[in-house]
């Protein structure tokens, strides 16, 4: 007998709806909480969306943030924020600081004089300081980037919704989109809660989370549709349980492989894309959860067409509900 790693037993008979009010309640609470946290704490927008300048400074000396701050405050160049970055990939004499300057007046990005002053000032307290990257976005562009990012997320949502609507039924589309919004909202909430930098890259991560979530949901829907055609009279809720149990192994398997890949990226990928990878990893967990506990609940509540045979229109069978209390 060959060895097989199986995280999920061959056959499961879990009743996914036994705790549906609890899980749905938790989801609802988390969604509201994410929204509140985002509104109250706000997102830590990167320069892509807020305009301004980010400098990545590298030094072989130990960095004294307080001294940096004092020096830069003396320049009177407006709002300055300084963070030290730690990463396991850094060697001992590599000290990275991230300096963020608020956007200046006008549409243009950064004035070279300002940048020069910052560099010269820092050199006086730390002669080894080097600017390894400088990124600057003017307020005009940052406003446009916010707009396109918003359009991108909306367009992706609508596109996916239309596709599912055509391939399945509108109830499925609603279910998929609600779970998609759930995942996106929870991801944004986490970003607000931990004040992780939110920029263009994060939008890419968010879109990936959304597509992963839908991907996961669609595979289950696909099986559900198949089962709907196979078992014409079984109550919908039983069919859903059967479907999720049948696809559970795949859901966990794919979630695991993706999580393995992303975890490697999270640990060894360096600090530059850490927040990006973190968003995706979080999204994989949330996406798997919403596949199991969100999407199909909505489809259950909305009901679906049960008879997929050709003469269904002549004799429509109403959706069946069962007491689940």
């Amino acid at each position, binding site marked *: 007998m*060959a*060895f*097989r790693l199986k995280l999920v037993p061959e056959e499961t008979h879990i009743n996914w709806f036994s705790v549906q009010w609890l899980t749905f309640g938790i989801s609802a609470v988390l969604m509201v909480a994410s929204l509140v946290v985002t509104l109250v704490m706000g997102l830590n927008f990167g320069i892509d969306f807020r305009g301004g300048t980010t400098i*990545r400074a*590298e030094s072989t000396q130990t960095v004294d943030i307080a001294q940096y701050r004092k020096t830069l405050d003396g320049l009177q160049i407006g709002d300055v924020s300084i963070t030290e970055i730690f990463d396991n990939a850094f060697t001992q004499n590599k000290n990275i600081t991230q300096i963020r300057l608020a956007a200046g007046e006008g*549409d*243009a*990005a*950064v004035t*070279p004089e300002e940048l020069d002053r910052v560099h010269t000032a820092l050199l006086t307290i730390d002669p080894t300081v080097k*600017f*390894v*990257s*400088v*990124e*600057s*976005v*003017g307020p*005009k562009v940052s406003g446009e*980037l916010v707009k*396109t990012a918003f359009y*991108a997320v909306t*367009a*992706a949502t609508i596109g*996916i919704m239309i*596709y*599912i609507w055509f*391939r399945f039924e509108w109830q499925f589309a609603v279910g998929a989109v609600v779970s998609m919004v759930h995942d996106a909202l929870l991801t944004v909430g986490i970003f607000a809660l931990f004040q992780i930098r939110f920029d*263009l*890259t994060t939008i*890419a991560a968010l*879109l*990936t989370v*959304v*597509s992963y979530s*839908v*991907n996961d949901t*669609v*595979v289950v829907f*696909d099986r559900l549709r*198949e089962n709907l055609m196979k078992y014409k009279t079984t109550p919908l809720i039983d069919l859903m349980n059967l479907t999720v149990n*049948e696809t559970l192994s*795949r859901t966990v*398997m*794919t979630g*695991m*492989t*993706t999580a393995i*890949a992303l*975890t*490697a*990226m999270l*640990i*060894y*990928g*360096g600090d*530059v*894309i850490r927040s*990006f990878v973190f968003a*995706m990893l979080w999204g994989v967990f949330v996406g798997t959860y919403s596949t199991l506990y969100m999407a199909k609940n909505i489809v259950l509540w909305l009901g679906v067409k049960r008879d997929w045979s050709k003469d269904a229109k002549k004799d429509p069978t109403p959706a069946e509900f069962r007491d689940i209390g």
Partner: protein
Amino acid sequence: MLQIPLWKRIVILGLVALGLLLAMPNAFYGRVETHNDALARIEKTGTTTPQDTADIAGWPSFLPSALVNLGLDLRGGAHLLGQVHLEDVYKARMTGLWPELRNDLAAQRDTVGAVRRVAGPDDQLIIEIGNADQMAQAITIARKYVTPVATLAGAGQSDLVIAGSGNRMTISISDAEKSAVADRTVQQTLEIVRRRVDEVGTREPTIVRQGADRVLIEVPGIGSAEELKALIGTTAKLTFNPVVGRVTDPNTRAQPGQMVVPSIDEKGIFYVLEETPVVTGEDLVDARPSFDQNGAAAVDFRFGPNGAKRFGAYTSSNIGQPFAIVLDNQVISAPVIRQAITTGSGQISGAMNVEQSTQLAVLLRAGALPAKMTFLEERTIGPELGQDSIDAGRISSIIATVGVVAYMIASYGLFGTFASIAVLINVGMILGIMSVMGATLTMPGIAGIVLTVGTAVDANVIIYERIREELRRTTNVVKAVEQGFKEAMSAIIDANLTSFISALVMFFLGSGPVKGFAVTFTIGLVTSVFTAIFLTRLMIVFWIEWRKPKQLIL
């Protein structure tokens, strides 16, 4: 389903081989790059040095040599998003129109009355005339300056729109003309930027138009955005003007048609020049740094036929006179004309070092930007950071792949090995396709590949789980495998098409990191479906044909 005809097997294996062959140059990145650079150098200079020959020999020419472009975040370099100030061009157009129109209207002063320009928006010319009842007449005069727009989109439209109400005539640039001007100006800007960037000899710069009036410039390998700005941002306007005199008082009053211009090197010296240049930078066809007979840095230049004729005529009748070279309203040098230069080729020498002469040659050759440009977005990524990112990307990709492969083999045994081979080939094919497309690999792009490694096995997982289910029902291996592939197909298509939708959205709406991610993610989707459905199946079919298994444990 498991009967794969020979030609299909050949096509599948052929595509895999092709993908891997195209990806191969990336494994020898440095060598292939040197090879390609040498070829580019030879093409540009037309001569071959021994170094070039050696560099070319480093990579066999019968092998593909297209490489994945490394993005700025991996290679280091500068990124600029510039906005071209079109309103300056519109303004210049209106300002240029005014004197001629004024003369024409003044000639009809008896009918239209006094003519006066009123302040208005930059892209409009607002004129007040004395006799409001003669507006029709004034409009007729102005209409002389209207010409049809010469673009396809603007066909049938005029360049100027003239409206009159009361004693006020408004001339504005039509929308068709505006978009034609915008196109022309941005195209010209792109061309000039490209030529200036090419001067520094960097490889693979990206210089593209973005939207109506934006220019995106990405130059790998350059030190900083400041450097890049200095290189392209100089709106150099070069003219050669006759010298009237040399003064030390900046407040010297110039005669009509003359101007007072400071000298660039000699402090406190001003030149009085004829305002109308003899030749301008536009007449120049070539300029290159060189040395004069005393070994000092100089610039050799050559004029086109028209410029040469005018330059020749002027120099022959003004021997012994100084002749000023004016760059952006500053006299660079006012050398004395030693002899008639009738061939159109000449030399500028004077107080310059080699660097300055190189810079001057670049400026002379590249000409002026047609309009001012401001920079809305600037990014500098140092080469060290790029190298760090490459290292991090490489390590994390390897660890991710090893992890996924180990997990797949532990879960599915032999079939897991098949899937793992398919995933590795998948990564190779992504790189191969990116190389051929000339797509750019960025750090988020690497993350996209890593994510693809994670999700690429998804299609295999869907198939294998189906086969497992079938195996519970039947012991017939062939039937189970066949059924598994068949049943899984619809889920695979649905799952990947939804991902494809969001990848496409990212590609078209995204910029920078979003786009970089979308590129690898999209290509990865296509190749992973191919490897999962066709390649894995072919491997399983080979295995079934070879071992004729009676049972299968999955």
